């Protein structure tokens, strides 16, 4: 059981490594944000879940931590993506469709 948990943690660490590699390789901000959010969230969840298996006595705090990461990280990346779109960070040239630009009135500033 402990060994399984340790291997889970190792997989989590590898996923975090993939997140950082993806951060280097992806072509524009939104793709980097996608890779970064997903891989880092799952990497952390895997690592902490592995620690739950290694040491079941700590389950309470670790589960709370997993819940916390799962709740906050997507929200922060959503807010960041929204800000990036608003300050007109360009999408990559390989983009095929941009539906948001059509209804761009959603993003008009009210004043200023």
């Amino acid at each position: 059981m402990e060994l399984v948990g340790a291997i889970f943690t190792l997989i989590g660490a590898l996923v975090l490594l993939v997140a950082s590699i993806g951060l280097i390789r992806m072509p524009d901000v939104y793709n980097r944000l996608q890779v970064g959010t997903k891989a880092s969230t799952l990497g952390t969840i895997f690592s902490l879940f592995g620690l739950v298996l290694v040491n079941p006595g700590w389950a309470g705090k670790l589960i709370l931590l997993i819940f916390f990461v799962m709740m906050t990280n997507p929200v922060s990346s959503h807010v960041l993506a929204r800000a990036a779109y608003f300050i007109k960070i360009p999408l990559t040239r390989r983009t095929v469709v941009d539906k948001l630009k059509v209804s761009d009135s959603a993003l008009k500033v009210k004043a200023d």
Partner: protein
Amino acid sequence: MRNSFILILIVAFGIMLYGLFDAFSGNEQLSELAKYYAQKENIEKVQAANLVTAVVVTYRGLDTLGEVTILFLTAAIIGFFLHNKEEKRFLRENSEIFITAAKLLIPIIILLGVYIFINGHLTPGGGFQGGAVIASAVILMILAFPEREFNSKFFTYLESASGTIFVLLAALGAIIGSGFLDNAIVPMGTFGKLVSAGVIPIIYSFVGLKVGSELSNILGNFKAVQSDN
């Protein structure tokens, strides 16, 4: 030219620091004072499992009082400097997702702050950290609902009340117990449980409330000064 003088100065300072580094040979055991604090009978007298808390609240309690006073003065000076009447500004609407998440997270964050300063004598943390966490809940509220007015009067009252109770509890130690900030004025409880260590968790709770409201006031002042452009 000027930079080279500064560089020489920095190098001289660095040599001085290297002297300190050279003279340092890692500690093998505790210093005499720390040994006194870590003795079994002294730990059982104070009953705080977290020795840092024991040092901060009882042995060096007056320092903490002075520090809280300094924070209060900082908050007062900043309020004096930056006081502006808040005007309406047009901000971009927050994302609905973020507002909902903030509504979910604010109670949990406040509860985390309370946990941190109530358990100050058992786990790492205490009044200052718990106060900082509560202040970050307040800042999350400010960010998520910018149209609500920041209620600085409430925080001022909370801060004064908890500061007064802190001083009263400390003075009560001098009257009933054996000295200023003596922690044996309430029943001690059993070592290592939540209800133990006498008056330490109570004092730390009030320190936490005080620090939290002071930091919230500072942040609220910095937010209010935004609006005069």
